[in-house]
């Protein structure tokens, strides 16, 4: 089982290697990187390439580790007990598996994406350690242990909102997605805009990386914003020359008022005579 990338998702060779190591050693793969570098898309690409089902577990600030394994629907059971629907004695009917639980219980190998793990409480990753190590969990209410028949491939993304605990990090394979270089970015853009004119793309990329390099910028634009910007520019039929002088649709690229102001000021600043 080897991951080799897909036609719509471009990966660097080292990322492909790391994904394959994680799959082979059966360790969770932790992905970090600037927003918009395709961390979440990676899991979809792996699922597509390997032909496996993807289960997405979106983490929120209130998510608890057990939610990913199973939820015991006490409200439904209480309701049934009071109003006499269903067989209340069968606790199992009120146990609903979460994404990780479903992957463990399945006969087929699955991919579980734990998206934005840093959103949850600080203790969340530690609470999952045991289950990820053993690939099994105990359902307290029924006393049943569910063990994975096919160990799922676990992909975890983090946006660095919180530091993750060391004990958790030790068990993961870690990859940090570098921000794409101009050349790599060109390849990425071509996936989304296969027939983009070269002159336009050259100009857009020059400007894009110039903006990203402005030191006072609060939030640097990402790949997805660049792709949107190109879409807007092309739909409006804006020529390469106008991009240089005017930077139209800056709001697509920059989401903060102060950043837009900053870039406008930087554009209008007279360039120093070449030396």
């Amino acid at each position, binding site marked *: 089982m080897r991951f080799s990338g897909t036609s719509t998702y471009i990966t660097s060779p080292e990322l492909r*290697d790391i994904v394959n190591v994680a799959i*082979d050693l059966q360790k969770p793969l932790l992905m*970090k990187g600037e927003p918009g570098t395709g961390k979440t898309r990676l899991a979809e690409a792996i699922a597509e390439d390997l032909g496996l089902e993807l289960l997405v577990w979106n983490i929120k600030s209130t998510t608890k580790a057990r939610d990913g394994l199973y939820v015991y629907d*006490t*409200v439904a059971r209480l309701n049934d*007990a009071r109003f006499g629907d269903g067989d209340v004695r069968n606790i199992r009917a009120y146990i609903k598996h979460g994404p990780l639980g479903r992957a463990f219980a399945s006969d087929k190998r699955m991919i579980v994406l734990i998206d934005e793990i840093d959103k949850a409480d*600080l203790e969340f990753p530690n609470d999952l350690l045991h289950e990820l190590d053993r690939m099994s969990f105990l359902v307290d209410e029924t006393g049943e242990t569910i063990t994975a028949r096919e160990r799922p491939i676990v992909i975890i993304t983090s946006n660095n909102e919180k530091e993750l605990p060391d004990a958790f990090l030790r068990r993961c394979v870690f990859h940090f997605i570098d921000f794409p270089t101009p*050349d790599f970015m060109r390849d990425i853009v071509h996936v989304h805009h296969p027939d983009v004119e070269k002159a336009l793309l050259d100009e857009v990329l020059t400007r894009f990386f110039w903006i990203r390099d402005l030191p006072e910028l609060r939030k640097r634009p990402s790949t997805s914003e660049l792709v949107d910007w190109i879409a807007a520019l092309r739909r409006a039929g804006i020529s390469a020359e106008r991009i240089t002088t005017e930077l139209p649709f800056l709001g697509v690229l920059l989401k903060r008022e102060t950043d837009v102001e900053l870039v406008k000021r930087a554009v209008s600043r007279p360039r120093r005579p070449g030396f």
Partner: protein
Amino acid sequence: MFVDFLYHLRGHGLRVTPTEWLALMEALSRGHARASLGVFYHLARAMVVKRESLFDTYDRAFAEFFEGVDRQFDLTEELLSWLSNPQLPRELTEAERQQIPHMDLETLYEQFEKRLAEQKERHDGGSRWVGTGGVSPFGNGGSNPQGIRVGGSGGGRTAVKVAGDRRYRNLRSDIVLDTRQMGSALRRLRRLSSDDQAHELDLEKTIDQSARNGGEIEIVMGPPRRNRLRVLLLMDVGGSMDPHAALCEKLFSAAHASTHFKAFKHYYFHNCPYERLYSDMSQLKGRPTAEVLKEIDERWCVILVGDAYMHPYELTQRGGIINYGARNEETGLQWLQRLRQRCPASVWLNPESERVWGAPTIKTVRTVFPMFPLTLDGLTESVDTLRGAKPNIPMKEQAVDPMAAFRSL
């Protein structure tokens, strides 16, 4: 060789655990480095370095270790020799030792040899184990450092050169600070009030208990999960702080944007806080410090930001205040001590390099407040100090003579 590399990494301050290192060995034995130092560079990093802020340290350690051996280093040979006589890191814990049989080094060895034999046949490369088309099996990973195009016409650069580029220098946590990172460091201050009284309905437990009770409703109360964190941010502006304005602004916007503070107040001062604190940077609008102090108590965290670099008079003399037309009846030092007494959980963040912290006024300020550099590491450390600070504990600073730094002048 491999164990040496492990200790080399640890010597550079990377806390590689034996378990991580054994996982790397397992990955190597399963052929994931493909006998290329370039691939090994990324593989080892993924297995043993788990924070991007440490990538630069790893790069430096890697370049140093493989410098010179880059071209001669034969990963395959190294691994074979290690596997035939596995040397284990000295400080394995009992739990880690127990994991080793699970890894079964002998099986790994067999697997590895088998794989090599297969490769020998497939490549038909005579004496060469791995590699194609005259590409050197070692060092020349061919993977472009930027990870864009494989190989390219000119062949890959060596792993040591890639590491030597130090592309992750900007991610080091002892230099870089952006608003987002500061925000996440500050977020660690968050303390949920678990010691509060149980006066909020715990719905889940109530239902659970009621179900266990055969449907008889039993109310379960729990402590509210509410944030009680209160932060007062005091920032030095103007004069010697001008070069640090951008950095301070980032901290300010991070603190300001934090939604997890129950209360947040901020004021400015120049060099040292005295009778008045200012709500604007030009220091025109202000409030008496005493009034501000009245509004806060020991539940508040106070973060002061400043270079603490000033004339000694400004700290120790009445009327030493730098602002023209102002006169302080009490010394700056008294005000600082008063602040600290009011809020034991307080820290001073200094944007100046620690090299100059020997300056007399900085030394003096440090007798009152624990001081940390205004870097990501410093901020994180200060947050830990704030979290650990216990209210209502008598302060120890009286034991230190705050004037000592000036005696030698």
